[in-house]
């Protein structure tokens, strides 16, 4: 499983990607903030190159913290995927990140969320028609 090691110790953000037909899972661990926001975007760009259209399940269960910069990176990730004609769904949403998405009205509006990976996979399969 390819992973993106960070130079800092302990790693502030770890990203791993694996296949979950019909899409790919990007598992996010750590903090999504000003210091790490661009890492997520770079990873999403890579994922978008690997699949056309990109169908992405972002697993947020390992996200410990998310601030407005982290939120920006999620919005930019959505923009990229949307631009490429794909779909993005979230699983494992909780804590500050869930609060932030709820408060900013984005939950459901651009970020559909599902309780389990299997349900997310089903949802993506339906978007493919």
């Amino acid at each position: 499983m390819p992973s993106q090691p960070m130079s800092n110790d302990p790693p502030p953000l770890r990203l791993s990607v694996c296949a979950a037909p019909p899409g790919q899972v990007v598992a996010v661990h750590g903090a999504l903030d000003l210091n790490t926001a661009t890492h997520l975007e770079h990873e999403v760009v890579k994922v978008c190159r690997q699949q056309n259209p990109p169908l992405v399940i972002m697993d947020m269960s390992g996200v410990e913290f998310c601030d407005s910069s982290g939120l920006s990176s999620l919005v930019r990730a959505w923009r990229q995927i949307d631009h490429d004609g794909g779909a993005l769904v979230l699983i494992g949403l909780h804590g500050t990140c869930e609060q932030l998405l709820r408060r900013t009205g984005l939950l459901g509006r651009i970020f559909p969320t599902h309780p389990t990976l299997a349900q997310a996979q089903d949802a993506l399969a339906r978007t493919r028609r």
Partner: protein
Amino acid sequence: MRAPLKPLILPDVPPVPVQVYNPARLAALAATALMHTEPAPDLDNLCELAASASGTRRALVVLFDARHAFYKAAVGCGPLTLGQRSFPLHTDACPLLAGTSGPLVAEDTTRDARLAHLPDVRDKRVGAWAGFPLRSADGLVLGGLCVLDEQPHPWTDGQIDTLTGLAGAVSDVIELRRQMHHAHERIDALESSGAAADRLAQTLQDSLLPPVIARPEWLDAAALYLPAGNGSSVVGDFYDLFPTRQPWWCAALGDVSGKGLEAAKVTALARYTVRTEATQHSSPATVLARLNDALVRQRVNDRFLTAVCVMLRPGPDGGVRGLVSLGGHAPALIRRADATVEEAGRPGLLLGIFADAGLHAEQVELAPGDALLLYTDGVTEAHGRSGHAVWGLTALSAVLAGCDGLNAEQTLERITTALSEYAGDHHSDDTALLLLRVPLPAEEKP
């Protein structure tokens, strides 16, 4: 951590025309690089010509940004150091020219409602005043050419015509200066374009966190801005409090995503738009919807803004009635006089991304002793000294509940003390706080 910024909030600050804060105007002024610089002989000469043509003792070429009026040229004031040429924006008459389409002429300033509030008028230093806008090539008002005398006296049509012509000449000189400066900048592009960006960022920033804010007689208010621990030079937060249509006042606070010049531009646009729209619409949801339109129209791209907007008016029995609207922003907190804390505002979509932000306005009633707190994420997302545990809304509410018997300023101090104890220098985002409290009847008016 850099020093917090605490604006003075006073009841008798005269209104400054909204056009003063127009980001396009501030950018055009910054491009001239003339603010806070040494006198220029060509402008001095034109200023002397203005005094002798009008027969006045004093003449000034005044430029104004969002914070200061600056005497670029002064005749009849004796020798002035650079520091003595700079005045708080609201104490000078020339910024009023940003809101007029032409000259502003007063035979007797003490009897002129537009000027009577100014310190120089109240202290009998200016009796007769005539000001003429100085414009950029795009027609934006950058400053004014003004002539003045201690004693009131009429102005003749001939004087007005001559001075209008001279103001045109001064505007031409300023445009020439801008072009020269631009040419110099292109010559050593690398260094000075960075310097120009810094200067513009600073100019815009000044308009976001005003050093002096007006408040209504019926509110005790305090504001505070804590720069981020990492000391980034340009902020993405803004706050504002200003009168709209009688008897309404508007309070706004917001946070743009990201940092740097681009963020500052968006924030400047936001504050300007809220100021402009709040005089047209009585619902804060409409004001934020118009702001959303402006941001979407400007295609601010990856930048988005969260903002809270509140309209307030005095209610019965010494209370205050209001409407709160949230655009992707954290809920406002109301601290009741009995120490309970509740949230105000229904979630609305953050601004600048979607054409329809689905915003709502919620009614709030504040009784004497109640306080309304607006804040940016910096306060609730502050990291602890160790690890990623954040301070959070619960902690903020708890501290607010404990602020018994404190006035607005003391309450904000209590909150920031608690925040620093928790986060030390670790908080990664800047923090803006605005507290509006309804005074108790027994209290002396703040």
